């Protein structure tokens, strides 16, 4: 314990951390990756649940290989069975149980693997770009509604711009 525990230094440290942690996505790629990771996270959760619930998965049991390879299959099926009979409350508990620590995740993080051999098919590249672009446009809209400032790296293309110059508010039709 040092003597530097003044509120000011705590605050300084904390905001420094916050700024790093709470950066907002700056472009469509970052936004896409963020939401993609958020949704994909369910597989990390389910692994977390499986390995916490069935400790046999953490050791190498002394059965022959074909039995060893059937253990994860059997336990996944058992997991599904339990899931079927879960109450919402139990499910929430289960979900929390699946939260993995940073070390677990780093252990299986493949994002830095060299992937020169992974070829991407062009249709899917286009699909991903299209999804990311739609997301980005939508995100800018929501940010603007909330009155939040944003910085853009991507030029926003205004979709069928609804220009109602000046004349809004007094619609005297009929």
């Amino acid at each position: 314990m040092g003597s530097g525990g003044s509120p000011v230094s705590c605050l300084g440290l904390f905001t420094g951390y916050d700024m790093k942690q709470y950066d907002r996505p700056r472009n469509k790629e970052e936004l896409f990756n963020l939401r993609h990771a958020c949704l994909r996270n369910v597989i990390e959760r389910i692994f977390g649940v499986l390995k916490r619930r069935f400790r046999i998965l953490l050791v190498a049991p002394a059965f022959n290989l074909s039995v060893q390879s059937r253990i994860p299959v059997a336990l996944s099926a058992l997991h599904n069975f339990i899931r079927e009979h879960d109450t919402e409350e139990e499910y929430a508990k289960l979900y929390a149980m699946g939260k993995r620590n940073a070390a677990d995740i780093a252990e299986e993080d493949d994002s830095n693997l060299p992937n020169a051999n992974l070829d991407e098919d062009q249709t899917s590249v286009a699909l991903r770009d299209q999804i990311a672009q739609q997301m980005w446009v939508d995100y800018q809209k929501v940010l603007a509604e909330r009155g939040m400032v944003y910085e853009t790296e991507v030029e926003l293309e205004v979709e069928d711009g609804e220009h109602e110059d000046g004349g809004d508010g007094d619609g005297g039709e009929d």
Partner: protein
Amino acid sequence: MQQPTANDPCAYKIQSDTRFYPFFKDAIGAIDGSHIHTAPPAEFRDSYRNRKGAVTQNCLFTCSFDMHFNYVLTGWEGSASDARVYEDARANGLEIPPGKYLLADAGYALGDGLLTPYRGHRYHLREWGRVGLR
């Protein structure tokens, strides 16, 4: 264990969240490999060693957004890459209806039913974080 079909409705987790819907409306689940410790006969041990040095089998799982497993393929040596195991899974019963996809990490190739993140971009982001304070 059931796999999703082309006619399944969009998952509640996606449909109920404007961050995900309609963008990921065709996502039917998530996929990843998990290394599970294994004890092969000594003569095979080296091929079961993964890139972290542990002796494992590389198991591939897919799951739905409500935490059910939909597909499992086990038995691959730990030295096999996720992409290689995926290839085998596609040849052995892993079905992804046309126009649908699974969410995968950057260890997989984009395409053939998989939607992967952009490589080389930052993470540790929040949608409503402060910005411009770097």
